[in-house]
């Protein structure tokens, strides 16, 4: 039985001593490992093409037609298309990351993750990356097909800044997702309901279909707290340059800086919170309790 005659260290102490390179490599491998089931699942069950791509595209189209019914200026159609694309990433974070830990605990995977020498951040990131395949496809379809079908004309002057804002928004969003995941680790079924509750209200305060500046004080608060709101506001300004309707709460470059701060804050906070919450979960025995 050669598989059983396998030893890669001479003592437990040696086996437990990993250098930084090996630790980092393991974290990266676990990101890939955790993303793997998502990617394979998408290949083996193509129903997501209908339910995650086509139907959500129709939802975005519904808002396009609301504006058409109101004879809205053309840029508003573009706002809806842009907002519809970004919705995909918010949903990825809510469902493929934050609330996912609840299901993982239910199935008994969570305790296996915690007994492995990896960080929960790697697992969460792997979940998000795995879900990014579907969300990215959805966002691309909404953006490209929506822009083509509904004659959306983008006016971009600062491509680099636009791309930077997009990636910063992603970083901040995923950091927030990890913060939410740490809360959900302690919840039972509430995690599922909380994720439900963070859909429409967040769409509203983030100005998914309209400039968040129109929300006044509420918009300002959203800019200060929700990465989706800041990112969308900045992207709207950068994608529709010259439009009198794409007014932002703050200039795009300032909002980019806010996103830098948010990304650093949320990722740092997530790291700290996941450690604290894990400890709390170990004290209360919630890492392995199934159900509510």
């Amino acid at each position: 039985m050669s598989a059983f005659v396998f030893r890669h260290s001479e003592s437990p102490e040696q086996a437990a001593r990993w250098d930084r390179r090996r630790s980092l490599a393991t974290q990266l491998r676990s990101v890939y490992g955790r993303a793997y089931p998502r990617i394979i699942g998408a290949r083996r069950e193509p129903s997501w093409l209908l339910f995650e791509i086509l139907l959500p595209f129709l939802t975005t189209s519904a808002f396009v037609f609301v504006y058409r019914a109101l004879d809205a200026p053309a840029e508003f159609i573009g706002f809806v298309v842009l907002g519809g694309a970004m919705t995909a990433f918010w949903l990825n974070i809510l469902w493929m990351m934050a609330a996912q830990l609840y299901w993982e605990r239910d199935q008994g995977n969570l305790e296996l993750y915690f007994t492995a020498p990896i960080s929960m951040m790697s697992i969460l990131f792997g979940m998000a990356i795995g879900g990014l395949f579907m969300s990215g496809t959805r966002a691309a379809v909404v953006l490209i097909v929506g822009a083509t079908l509904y004659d959306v004309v983008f006016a971009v002057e600062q491509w680099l800044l636009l791309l930077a804002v997009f990636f910063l928004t992603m970083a901040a969003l995923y950091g927030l997702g990890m913060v939410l995941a740490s809360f959900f680790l302690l919840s039972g079924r509430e995690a599922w309901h909380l994720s439900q509750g963070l859909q429409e209200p967040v769409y509203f305060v983030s100005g998914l279909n309209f400039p968040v500046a129109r929300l006044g004080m509420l918009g300002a608060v959203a800019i200060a707290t929700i990465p989706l709101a800041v990112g969308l506001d900045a992207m709207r300004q950068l994608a529709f340059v010259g439009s009198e309707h794409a007014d932002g709460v703050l200039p795009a470059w300032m909002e980019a800086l806010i996103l830098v701060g948010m990304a650093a804050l949320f990722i740092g906070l997530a790291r700290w919170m996941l450690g604290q919450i894990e400890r709390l979960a170990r004290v209360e025995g919630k890492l392995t309790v199934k159900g509510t």
Partner: protein
Amino acid sequence: MSAELGAARPGRREAWAASRRAFRTAMRLGWQTEANWTDPLLFFIYSVAKPVGAAAILIFMVDIISGGRADPAIRSFVVIGSALWSFVVAGIAGLAWSVLDDRERYRMLKYLYVSPNPILLLLLGRGAARIGIGAFGAGITLVIGVVLLGLPFDPLAVDWPLAMVSMALGLVSILSIGLFLAATVMQTRQDSWSYPEAVAGGLFLLVGAVFPLLVLPAPIQAIGLVTPLTWWLEGVRGALFPGALSGIGGEGSLYATLAGRAEPSSAEIVLALVASTAVVSVLGLLFFRWSERRAKEKGLLDQVTGS
């Protein structure tokens, strides 16, 4: 021996009583597990945050374009459609989530199948419980609309018979669409939790919920005209708020071209609702039975997927 066989073959009255009992139990179970209106968080999320948030998005869209001087008829149209949509999301999700919950989380689906009660009744009961949650959401949104946004609601002017008939038939059609979805998720994996909302979102475009059908291209209007939800919305909207903007008719609409009239009458609405609901119900039932058979052949009833 014959007494034992008799117990396995109840009379019609006993069967009917057992079915009612099963439906009521399933409704209560659905309410306990999902609704529990005594839990403030759950109540707030499903009956306030989600429906009011969805309506707020639309109201703001309208107000932004009109510069705060929106036509009250348009505002009403949007608020009523958004409020009623709570029924659709809740009803569609109710059946599909019941299948997913029972299969993936509670691991009870196989036990439900081997129990003597028809699974359809149990799922419909759970779906009905969820519709109750939707009803709260719809009610709260309408109340906010009337109180804060000036929706012109006059209880004396309401066409109650039309409202009740439309509502009853509409709920049947919602549950039938939910049955389609329940049948679908029986074949798919755990990530199917998002499918009901995706379907509701897709239907949102087609049925004149928040904008009149005439805004859509003619072929898509045609799809809307054969969908029962379109007629349901028209019936309830027209009954509760007489004189409201029609979602189906209007100058230049496909309906006007085909019927030669600007708007459908109450009788037409009811007739179209009955016909379309019947078709969707039969198709939903047939699809569900097919999916069940396939699930039994492939051993999907007790699979646990996860991803």
